[in-house]
């Protein structure tokens, strides 16, 4: 039996993520929790997030979850989603500059007035279904077609210092990192819990993952 801890730090809707995890496997128990020992004794850890990064980091520190996340990210299959991906990096431009958890070195920057090839202004947030090019083989991409569409909603994107950790890219219109991986960590800018079949497949792959890439 897999036990997935979904880290609850008061940011956004965790029901979708836990329902999606339950939908993909009957061999999984999902616990939405802010309790360090529950998180550290789980077999898998999912770090979700929506909203603004300053509040996210402040809440993690207040609940003393920053250390717990750092520890979990070293030891067990770990999935960061959206803001839960961005918070793993070193620094974000959001909220006049916010220091991140620095688990994956790199920067988080704003889409700066993107314009398409015909000169049309692109909207920010980048919202909707975009294609993800898988740039490496990874257990979490199993049974997901190359260039499948996933649901995104974000105004900032990650640029890891080491490009080798990029697991997938999208374009808006410039290429940006849509997914990262390193050892037992996988992180996605898109929302697998809102990305229908492809997203559910990714979550199923996650709960079946042993953390080896």
């Amino acid at each position, binding site marked *: 039996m897999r036990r997935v801890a979904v880290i609850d730090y008061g940011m956004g*809707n965790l029901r979708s993520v836990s329902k*999606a995890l339950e939908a993909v496997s009957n061999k999984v128990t999902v616990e939405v929790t802010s309790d360090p020992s529950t998180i550290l004794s789980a077999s898998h850890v999912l770090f979700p997030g*929506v909203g603004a990064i300053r509040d996210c980091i402040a809440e993690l520190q207040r609940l003393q979850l920053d250390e717990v996340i750092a520890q979990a990210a070293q030891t067990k299959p770990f999935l960061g989603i959206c803001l839960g991906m961005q918070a793993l990096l070193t620094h974000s431009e959001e909220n006049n500059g916010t220091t991140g958890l620095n688990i994956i070195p790199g920067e988080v920057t704003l889409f700066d007035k993107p314009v398409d090839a015909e000169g049309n202004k692109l909207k920010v947030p980048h919202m909707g279904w975009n294609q993800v090019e898988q740039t490496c083989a990874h257990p979490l991409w199993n049974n997901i077609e190359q260039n499948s569409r996933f649901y995104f909603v974000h105004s900032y994107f990650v640029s890891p210092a080491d490009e080798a950790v990029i697991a997938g890219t999208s374009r808006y219109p410039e290429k940006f990192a849509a997914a990262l991986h390193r050892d037992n960590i996988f992180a996605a800018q898109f929302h697998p819990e809102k990305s229908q079949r492809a997203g559910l497949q990714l979550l199923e792959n996650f709960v079946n993952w042993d953390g080896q890439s």
Partner: protein
Amino acid sequence: MGLAKRIIPCLDVDAGRVVKGVQFVDIRDAGDPIEVAKRYDLQGADEITFLDITATHHQRDTMVHVVEAVASQVFIPLTVGGGIRTVEDIRRMLNAGADKVGINSAAVKNPEFVREAADKFGSQCIVVAIDAKKVSAEGEINKWEIFTHGGRQPTGIDAVEWAKKMVALGAGEILLTSMDKDGTKSGFDLDLTRAISDAVDVPVIASGGVGKLQDLTDGIKLGHADAVLAASIFHFGEHTVAEAKQQMANQGIEVRL
């Protein structure tokens, strides 16, 4: 390859049933919201919007249960609008499984509510719904005003300026309904859609008036909308979402097929 334009079926919900009226009268029953949402998900809907058209205190509980049930079975973004007036209303809907909430009259009554909501929950889940009606005469420069109470109550607020203000306060998306077109099946107000879409940096969903598939394509191509919302053409089996997407794709619009 890139971001797809979205098709969003809208379910008007009254007392736990999907209904659809023509300009707020002649309500026809269109089924159980959970079944209808599942059907649209299978057809390839990119998101689903629920509009609680009565939104009394008692019926709010019914709506929460509908959202909970849908969110356990349908894994695409869900928006809930209608009667969202307080931070607590928003929290309840998000906790039930909604990803975004639509704020309409409460924003007109108190624009700071939009700022408060965006600060608390993030702009990504705050959709400001704008009901606009043309107030300029034939031959004059186009002008639209915000109306409330289902299009009956004028406010004197210019629609384009209002949209910009809502975005400045933190709206992450605009759901734009033409009260002149809603329920008429004669197509979107394309001038209105383009005026708002070009004026703001956030995505705009065009709504009100879809009667045939070409209207959806026109909303994107001529109205510059990022997403199109429709109800009755899907509810009564005239067309599927998949047909709509195929038709859009045939005309060169990027969609999720």
